[in-house]
């Protein structure tokens, strides 16, 4: 058999224009040049405009006197003598406060509704579905306006406050609750609580080890509960109950005493948590549905009852699906808390991008600082999420 003559084509020298490598470099250099030019021209225009409008630049404003007051503050702040820097922390703490409580509430409501949507009870499943569809399809801002303007603002004034059981008053200035007064000696209760938590954790770890070794099970939940609740309670009684409440008193024109929770805070909290809960409910539902029925049936076949099946088989697998979208919902809640500006809750955006920006006019600095804060929260969370995901990911062959 004669060999077929093979024609070898030597790779000819392609023109530089068609070399993908060279093209790649050219594209990138052009893009860099365009972006660089845009940034440069924006910066030079900004400098010129700021000079023309006689607006200062730089972060010198940080220690200037603020000259405005904020109704809700977790750290001391007053119109006279507080600085813009302190205003920043007031706003940041308010954002974190509403976000933290909102996340807890949204999680509770969301998990309840998500499980309810899968309930065998027809009416409960339908109610949960209506809740989710209704809340998800209406803008959050409208819901906030509704809670603030249509529910909380029309409440009666302080003189005609609605009196709820437990000395709670409700009026158009918010909710007035009895405020706890800590007597000296209360520190012991706090220490007892911390000790109780540490002991409970230690016990659970020990009990798990025992179970792995001998198969003997302990009533972990009850003992942990006794340690966490019982221990502080005993100390509380032993130290002579160092806690009393300052009950709000209905005066002729006003309420005195107690602690006031502002309507802006309540509206934002209710709006944010019910809105995010609808999304969390869908996440939870998808997570539970992602665990195949075979898993439950296999667990039953192994002799596990429905409680342990849920705890040991379904939930651990569902959580793997639930956690990543759940975190992004938490992040959405934090970012959505900036809608506070619409109803006047003094969060970071309202205090810094609203009031301070209007007073100083230093748009670039305020916007950068505020964005940097949200960006930090987002990036740190997604970084932590990536680590978690790596740890939780299924180890495959």
């Amino acid at each position, binding site marked *: 058999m004669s060999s077929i003559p093979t024609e070898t084509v030597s790779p000819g020298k392609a023109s530089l224009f068609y070399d993908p490598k060279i093209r790649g470099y050219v594209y990138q250099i052009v893009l860099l040049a365009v972006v660089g030019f845009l940034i440069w021209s924006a910066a030079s225009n900004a400098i010129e405009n700021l000079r023309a409008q006689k607006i200062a630049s730089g972060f010198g404003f940080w220690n200037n006197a603020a000259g405005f007051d904020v109704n809700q503050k977790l750290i001391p702040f007053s119109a006279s003598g507080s600085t813009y820097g302190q205003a920043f922390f007031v706003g940041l703490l308010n954002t974190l406060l509403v976000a933290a409580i909102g996340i807890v509430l949204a999680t509770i409501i969301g998990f309840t509704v998500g499980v309810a949507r899968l309930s*065998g009870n*027809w009416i409960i499943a339908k109610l949960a579905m209506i809740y989710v569809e209704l809340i998800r399809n*209406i803008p959050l801002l*409208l819901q906030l306006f509704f809670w603030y303007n249509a529910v909380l603002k029309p409440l009666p004034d302080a003189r005609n406050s609605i009196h709820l059981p437990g000395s709670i008053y409700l009026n158009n200035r918010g909710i007035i609750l009895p405020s706890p007064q800590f007597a000296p000696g209360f520190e012991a209760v706090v220490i007892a609580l911390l000790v109780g938590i540490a002991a409970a954790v230690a016990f659970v770890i020990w009990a798990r080890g025992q179970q792995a070794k001998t198969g003997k099970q302990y009533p972990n939940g009850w003992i942990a509960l006794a340690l966490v609740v019982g221990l502080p309670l005993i100390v509380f009684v032993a130290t002579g109950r160092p806690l009393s409440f300052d009950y709000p008193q209905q005066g002729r024109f006003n309420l005195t005493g107690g602690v006031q929770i502002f309507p802006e805070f309540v509206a934002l909290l209710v709006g944010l948590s019910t809105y995010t809960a609808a999304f969390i409910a869908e996440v939870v539902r998808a997570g539970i549905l992602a665990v195949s029925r075979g898993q439950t049936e296999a667990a039953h076949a192994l002799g596990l009852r429905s409680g342990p099946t849920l705890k040991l088989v379904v939930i651990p697998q569902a959580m793997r699906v639930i956690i990543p979208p759940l975190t992004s919902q938490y992040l959405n809640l934090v970012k959505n808390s*900036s809608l506070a500006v619409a109803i006047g809750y003094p969060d970071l955006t309202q205090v810094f991008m609203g009031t301070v920006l209007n007073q100083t006019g230093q748009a670039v600095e305020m916007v950068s600082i*505020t964005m940097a804060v949200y960006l930090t929260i987002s*990036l740190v969370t997604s970084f932590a999420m990536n680590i978690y995901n790596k740890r939780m990911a299924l180890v495959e062959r």
Partner: protein
Amino acid sequence: MTDATLENAPNRFVRRETLQQQPAPLSVAGPIAWIRTNLFSGPVGTILTLLSLYIVVVAVEDLVRFYIIDAVWTGASREACLADKVGRPVGACWPYVTDRFQYFVYGSYPVAERWRVNIVFVMFALGVAWLLWNKAPQKKLGAFFFFVMLPLSGFILLLGGATAESLLRVLLLISAALAVVYAVASFVPSVAVWTSAPRRVAEQDLSPWRRFAGPKILILMALVIFGLVGVLNEQIGLPRVDTGLWGGMMVTFLISAVGIVFSLPFGVVLALGRRSRLPIIQLLSVIFIEFVRGVPLITVLFMANTMLPLFVPQEYSPDRLLRPLIGVALFASAYMAEVIRGGLQAIPKGQFEGAMSLGLGYWQMMRLIILPQAMRIVIPGIVNTFIGLFKDTTLVTIVGIFDFLNTIQATLVDPTWATPTTRTTGYAFAALFYFLCCWGMSRYSIAVEKRLAAGQKR
């Protein structure tokens, strides 16, 4: 030994004929069984059912009473909706909505010029239906209509005045010039040096009318639409209406339309950039996407409102309505990019390799092979992003743009209709509007998802 069958079974009591099938007992099938298993399964289930039934009855009764039975349906002013004037408990105040309806739709757009808005509304509805209806013909023409013709002619119609007129003139000139070029190319295909050589050859065999059918139909559409707008401009005149007067649902739709028209192409570019092998392009895309996704929309809007005017020379300071539009467009692009990236990642590697082995370049591969498949997969994701965008348009209220929600807010403080129930009525109307829009879109996205999954079902 005989076989053990029914006929020759040794035991006398074995039945020899098959029984008629009996209906399932009432306790396991039928409505009673359904009620027992789905509503009254066990004591806890029963309590829950009764409790929620009670809540439903009370809630529905209250809502129906407030919004329908006790509601006021006609009237000229707030007097009609005041309980002591009417002499009965008063629910929702609907005449307020009917009275202010025009304002909710057009904002302060001059009454005499509102027909222009209506034309744009009709075009918008047409474009949306064309793109979303699966069986509609000429999808490419539809995309051209929605993404090019609608923004340009909508801008000219809504704004009017000298700016719009000169823009219209330029557009008409360009379309006419292109029409001439393609008319020549139809008769002498070798003139069309800008198209690829194989295509020119392919067009040789067709009759002059059918050559370059694709570009010609686009140009025809442009000529017709711009021509009609030009006729309107000549005959009726399109005086300038400042953007400060724009408002209501018109602005809500405008912002969402601008958001989707800009975010889709930008999103595609950013998604391609993020998956690019060129490090600088990838880095810049990642920085943009992650930065925008990491901050709230409000801060982006504030930035657009306060910082954009600083970044350009004073004389080019952007319009008050344009600033949030830019902010929304940038914001939506980042989210769209992530959705499209999901689609790109779902395309099997073989498709890329197949395209490259056919000798297609990067852009040809993306345009002809990858993006058509990827975009089809992510239609539900795009619709969901768009629902989010539509809800987020309400945020422009905060930077002082009169979108639909802000027109509602504005009429609530108007003394003409200030009654105790105006607020609840207005918010209910707004909620109904947003709910119907978003819910309809989500139903559409679910339907598409089902259609796309049809091939995967076994």
